[in-house]
């Protein structure tokens, strides 16, 4: 029986040591369905983060004011947060889209989402009338803050968790492209050596 390369099928679904009888439905699903789903999710979440970061980088004062409106952080921390958070959003967003260092990036994204959810939920439950959540700089994207905003962020967190759970070998992106290239070179070399 020919050796099945490890990268080709997802042995996680099979019992260790079990005989290989061709790819199962789950193997096919993980090979053909997960990567495009993961790509879609990454583009969606990464795009949101890049879009959200851009306006905040251009106008840090407005973002600092948005943070202050939540009345959760001491004044001396607000500016530092307004400087760093947009860059964190931008970098993680770009990493998600290009598909390299995806897991560290999505860990940070999920961490941010948890903080955002808590902040918005806290503001809504305290009855703070913030106008908008300050998530996006542009006026048209600034929806009125409500429990709907919390649920929207929960949805994004769920997408983040999905991306975190997808295995690296099922991920279409720069890292996988580089690995494919390495494998191609290795096979060419192996064929050359006989």
């Amino acid at each position, binding site marked *: 029986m020919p050796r099945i390369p490890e990268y080709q099928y997802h042995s996680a679904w099979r019992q260790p040591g079990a005989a290989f009888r061709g790819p199962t439905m789950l193997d096919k699903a993980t090979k053909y369905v997960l990567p495009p789903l993961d790509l879609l999710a990454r583009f969606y979440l990464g795009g949101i983060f890049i879009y959200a970061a851009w306006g905040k980088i251009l106008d840090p004062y407005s973002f*600092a004011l948005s943070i202050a409106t939540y009345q959760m952080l001491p004044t001396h921390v607000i500016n530092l947060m307004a400087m760093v958070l947009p860059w964190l959003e931008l970098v993680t967003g770009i990493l998600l889209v290009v598909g390299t260092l995806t897991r560290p990036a999505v860990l940070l994204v999920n961490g941010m989402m948890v903080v955002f959810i808590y902040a918005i939920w806290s503001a809504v439950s305290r009855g703070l009338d913030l106008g908008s959540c300050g998530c996006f700089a542009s006026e048209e994207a600034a929806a009125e803050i409500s429990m709907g905003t919390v649920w929207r962020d929960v949805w994004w967190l769920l997408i983040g968790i999905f991306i975190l759970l997808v295995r690296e070998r099922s991920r279409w992106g720069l890292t996988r492209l580089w690995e494919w290239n390495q494998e191609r070179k290795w096979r060419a070399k192996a064929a050359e050596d006989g």
Partner: protein
Amino acid sequence: MKERTYMARLVRDGMRAGYLLAACFLVGVLFNYFRGEGIPLVATGDYQVFVPCPETESEAGKVSLDEVGPDDSISFPKDATLVDARSEEGYAGGHIPGAVNLPYDELDGVDAEAVTELAARVRVGRVIVYCDGWEEEEDPAARYDHPPSEYLADELKSAGIERVTSLTGGLGEYVKRGGALEVGGE
């Protein structure tokens, strides 16, 4: 190649996330430093957060010291409950004898339970609310259009207390007319 366990990979990715965070921290601070219109690293003053004042359904009236008692001997009606709308510290520092403290915060409004309790207690009597008292033209930069006692009086009226008024001039006017103060908590 040796397969890493899930936990080992998570720890490795967590550390990478930490490096990313540190890098973003540096980039953010440096970018802000070198850009023209950056913000200071630490805010020099409090941010002016504009939050709409709590809205009330009813509007209470006003009463001046001339109406509640003669100038030289200020005496409030016997059935009147005096409510001090200032902070607990302000109340402890000196208040009109017999007044109860119901601190009113311009942002958070007033403790709903305390209002209900007061409403139950003064069902038949009248309530006079006072605060420090200030003239509107004294502080043109003031964020609020009315003294806190007026807002609190409106809230109490909305809570069902019929005969509620706010004291014009507040404690300032009371002291100016030689009114006695009581020091200490409730």
